[in-house]
């Protein structure tokens, strides 16, 4: 039964490409559109960063996914519009407002020691002076909820350490992207997680909406590696041979059930879906997200995909869960135009552009 979702709103100031972006009234399923470079993927990555806080290198991970080099003090500038000012991200959750500050800071001795210790086997270890310069401080919360971590340039990358780890509610999160293909081994692990959580039948029932011939999923070993096979009337077939559409749906559904009460970020995963099944995909995602109390953020360029999402979500009886937000950028300032399900229906009815 649905009880809520994590991100109700978000404001991003002086962080990465966002000078000041505010998005209010987020829903369970949020489709993010906008022109190339408007910040769709950066918004997904920012959301991921917020819930990945306990990872000392959470700030850097999205750059590694993009294979963007971050080196030395110059690399610090990549996180800010204005490096001289702190970045601030505030967001609304069911339990109140949260705020994270990221700012340039001189590394305190404790952080220097911790960072050095983590690199004891690295080629550039030369004592604490390695980290004597500037780094970034990430802080959030106060008192028993206080969190603080440091990130510093080192060698050809960054190293991070957490110096305060108060109790913080952080939902689990999975980013699925066409650039980050989930491996067969990971999928097998996720399927195992779902079985352990008693969600085998739920996952299968959703898969059957897309492909009724699938009776079961089984993990078999090809050499040392586990692989999911689909059991169909016609025989067993490895998931990878079922096509990207089915594979994408499976990874999405597994993520939703595995993370339960979590967040799934989908970066243009609909590009692998044929238009005739896109609305089914979203119908399934909407039903599953509601059942698993999961929040979804997805980017898309396609009018067809956005309309199909609205159709599928309506078919799932979850119209109120739908939000489309178009990111815009004018004079280096980002903004978001929000559409409800009704707004998209009206735009569609009149044939208006909304991307």
């Amino acid at each position, binding site marked *: 039964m649905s009880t809520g979702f994590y991100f109700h709103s978000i404001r991003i100031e002086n962080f990465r490409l966002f000078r000041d972006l505010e998005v209010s009234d987020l829903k369970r399923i949020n489709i993010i559109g906008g022109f190339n470079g408007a910040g769709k993927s950066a918004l997904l990555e920012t959301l991921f960063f917020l819930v990945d806080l306990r990872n000392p290198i959470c700030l850097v991970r999205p750059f590694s996914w993009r294979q963007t080099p971050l080196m030395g003090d110059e690399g610090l500038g990549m996180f800010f519009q204005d490096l001289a000012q702190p970045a601030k991200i505030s967001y609304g959750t069911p339990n109140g407002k949260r705020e994270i500050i990221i700012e340039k800071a001189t590394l305190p001795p404790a952080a220097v020691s911790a960072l050095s210790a983590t690199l004891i086997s690295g080629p550039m270890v030369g004592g604490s002076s390695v980290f004597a310069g500037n780094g970034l401080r990430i802080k959030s919360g106060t008192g028993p909820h206080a969190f603080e971590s440091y990130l510093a340039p080192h060698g050809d990358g960054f190293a991070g350490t957490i110096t305060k780890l108060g109790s913080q509610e952080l939902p689990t999160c999975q980013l699925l992207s066409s650039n980050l293909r989930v491996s067969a081994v990971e999928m097998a692990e996720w399927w195992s997680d779902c079985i352990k959580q008693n969600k085998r039948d739920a996952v299968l029932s959703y898969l059957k909406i897309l492909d009724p011939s699938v009776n079961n999923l089984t993990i078999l070993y090809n050499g040392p590696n586990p692989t999911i096979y689909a059991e169909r009337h016609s025989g067993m077939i490895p998931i990878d041979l079922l096509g990207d559409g089915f594979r994408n749906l499976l990874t999405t559904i597994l993520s939703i059930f595995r993370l339960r009460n979590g967040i799934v970020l989908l970066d243009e995963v609909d590009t692998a879906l044929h238009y005739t099944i896109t609305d089914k995909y979203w119908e399934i995602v909407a039903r599953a997200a509601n059942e698993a109390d999961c929040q979804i953020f997805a980017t898309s360029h396609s*009018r067809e995909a956005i309309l199909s999402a609205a159709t599928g979500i309506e078919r799932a009886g979850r119209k109120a869960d739908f939000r489309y937000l*178009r990111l*815009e950028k*004018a004079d280096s300032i980002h*903004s978001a*135009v929000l*559409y409800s399900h009704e*707004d998209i229906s*009206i*735009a569609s*009815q*009149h*044939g*208006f*552009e*909304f*991307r």
Partner: protein
Amino acid sequence: MAYKYITLPNISPHSFSREVLFVTEGQDDALFLEALLEARKEDVGRIEVRYTDGIGGISGFLSGIAKSPAFTQHRLRAICVIVDADDSFQETEKRFQKELHTANLPSPNAGAVVARDRHWIGLYIFPRTGSIGMLEDLVLDSIRTDPRAELANNVLQKRIEEGIPLDLVSKRAVQIFLAISEGQICRGLGRGIRNGTIPFDHNTFEELNTFLDDFLAYR
């Protein structure tokens, strides 16, 4: 005569490539406006006129436009809503001010233009500010002394005196006027106007022209 301002048929997705948009409730209003704009020698390339097939469709139309990329990114700079007063000027004005507000657009008084965030929004109610009626009443005023209009009015008055319940008398009068005028036969005022039967230089259009001067002077 080719359509110059009106996008027909609708192209989907429609991205509003022109700076100025007039939204009217019916096709006749749109065709009338197109003819008037042409008589004014307005720049064809910057204006679009669209109609919504009825007053009820304007609400959704406005909210859709207000959220469209063309509007939020300021390629579409000025929007004017033109509707009939019908039985109550005040009620119609109030209703469309509310519709504009609901669409998160500024709400000018009828006959006025409001600027906000580099957008200009206008509202005009036919036949003229403060009067009940419709476009046809405005047009009839411009041809009141024309023998064809007098004939049309006399016929309608006679029928009403005979006890025939006739609604939309001004529409019927215009249809009779057009039916006995030269040019192709047509049902509505819009197409009739395209036959060149309406004197746009008549002073009855002065208030509307002044409003259009203000609206089209957006910066």
